[in-house]
């Protein structure tokens, strides 16, 4: 296992310590239970926006805490949903009296833990709304399964909801923004390599030198199909076509195009992916009005990419453009 870490069991704590040392102007890190919280939390009268999930997806979520985005994030062990007590404490820490939105990715563990936390918070008199992001078109949706995974749209939801909360919107209104992202965002990903979970010490799956996994999630799990490696343009087609067909996106739609790196993929490759994704979107008559290119929702050091399309309306564009100041995403301030 080749990683810049000390002991596997210390990875999350030491990463959080690093973040605390690096960004005292933006965030505070609370240990036992672990959560990252905006330095000026709770902001009185403002809806609090909370997310969380396993570690290993950095900068999501802890690196997206700050002004105009998340008020707090709960990091679990690597790839493991955090626990209700963390979420409860973080919820309390960011409750400015206007309630708290929980942005939850659709994984059984995340959902159950957030459910319990929301119950506990409500029992303490805090208004909580939860929205579950499930945007991964690689997974067939069905009432009888766990449904689709929550992936790339989560980052976009955190930005837009954070901006809406910053404007002073009500809990219901902020949650409505999140529900719009849930409805209007779709993603799909692929991997060139597996990642290695620190405490496991070897790659989660073996992938021969000439093969790739299509339809992967963000936890190093294998994808829906394995196939021979293909040129980037063909890979992008394989990701974009199911995404566009899904809602479906229609000619004339204004979209945000998010090309995400899985952690081990350099920017030069992401721009090659973006090029083709933008071309395909345009060929389908979509208007790419905003974009995001970089490694924002990662899977440790996995090499690969995911693409997210989010249909945008005027309000969402304004929320996207609003100032944001977090360790991982920043503009306008």
């Amino acid at each position, binding site marked *: 296992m080749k990683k810049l870490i000390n002991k596997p069991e210390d990875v999350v704590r030491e990463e959080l310590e690093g973040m605390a040392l690096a960004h005292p102007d933006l965030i505070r890190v609370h240990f036992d*239970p672990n959560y990252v919280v905006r330095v000026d939390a709770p902001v009185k009268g403002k809806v609090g926006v909370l997310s969380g999930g*396993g570690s290993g997806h950095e900068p999501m979520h802890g690196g997206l805490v700050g002004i105009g985005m998340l008020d707090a994030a709960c990091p*679990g*062990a*690597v*790839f*493991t*949903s*955090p*626990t*209700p*007590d963390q979420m409860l404490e973080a919820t309390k820490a960011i409750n400015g009296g206007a309630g708290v939105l929980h942005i939850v990715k659709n*994984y*059984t*563990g995340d959902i*159950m*833990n957030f*459910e*319990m936390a929301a119950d506990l918070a409500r029992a303490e008199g805090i208004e909580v709304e939860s929205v579950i992001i499930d945007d*991964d078109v*690689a*997974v*067939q949706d069905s009432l*009888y*399964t*766990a449904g689709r*995974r929550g992936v790339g749209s989560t980052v976009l939801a955190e930005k837009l909801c954070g901006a809406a909360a910053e404007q002073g919107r009500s809990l219901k209104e902020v949650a409505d923004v999140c529900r719009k992202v849930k409805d209007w965002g779709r993603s799909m990903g692929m991997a060139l390599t597996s990642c290695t*979970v620190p*405490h*496991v010490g070897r790659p*989660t*799956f073996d992938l021969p030198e000439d093969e790739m996994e299509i339809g992967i*999630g963000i*936890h*190093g*799990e*294998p994808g*829906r199909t394995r196939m021979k490696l293909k040129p980037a343009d063909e890979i992008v087609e394989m990701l974009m076509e199911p995404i566009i067909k899904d809602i479906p996106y229609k000619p004339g739609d204004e979209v945000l195009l998010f090309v995400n790196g899985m952690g081990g993929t350099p920017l030069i490759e992401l721009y090659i992916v973006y090029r083709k994704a933008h071309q395909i979107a345009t060929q389908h008559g979509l208007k790419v009005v905003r974009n995001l290119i970089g490694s924002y929702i990662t899977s440790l050091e996995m090499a690969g990419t995911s693409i997210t399309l989010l249909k945008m309306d005027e309000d969402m564009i304004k929320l996207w453009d609003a100032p944001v100041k977090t360790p991982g995403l920043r503009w306008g301030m």
Partner: protein
Amino acid sequence: MVITRDKVLEWIKRYADLLAENRDYLTQLDAAIGDADHGANMDRGFKAVLSKMPEIADKDIGTILKTVGMTLLATVGGAGGPLYGTLFLQAGMKTTGKMELTLEDWINALEAGITGVKNRGKAELGDKTMIDALVPAWNALKQAAENGSNLGEALDRCARAAEEGMKATIPLVARKGRASYLGERSAGHQDPGATSSYLMLRAAAEVWRDA
């Protein structure tokens, strides 16, 4: 033939040991169809439970089981945390104040625990989850008791049914939990949660056999 409080503590200890021993095995199972953390999660949770043992060693069985449940909830995370947490919490509710368990008490406690898991996770038999080990195991336990088996025999039947249920998850296509994202590719692999549930019931059989 009753299960004393000390035997309950011993069971928890034995289960913790089994989880530590099988940590890599469980993780490997989870790597195939999940995210390679089930072993580490359960082991972390039960290590935390062990460190709580001294505080609760003189409490009633209900308190002990509830403490185990709360500890798992706060330390395991993932799907395993709420599910096992709920199982122990609910079993603890059913055994509040008790300093020993009859076979019937244990059947009721386990039933409450399993019902909790079902309510929380909404998995059905055949979804390729821990339910596939727990439900047949409980059925076998109940059946054995109705047939007049003694405690040891009933617990053995229970553990064996859990083992069979666990193995029966291999050909299944997952419909719940992370493995369901793999669709057809989840077939051919044993479910990690069913495996940790079998270990739990095996630990009970081993430790309580000659109670």
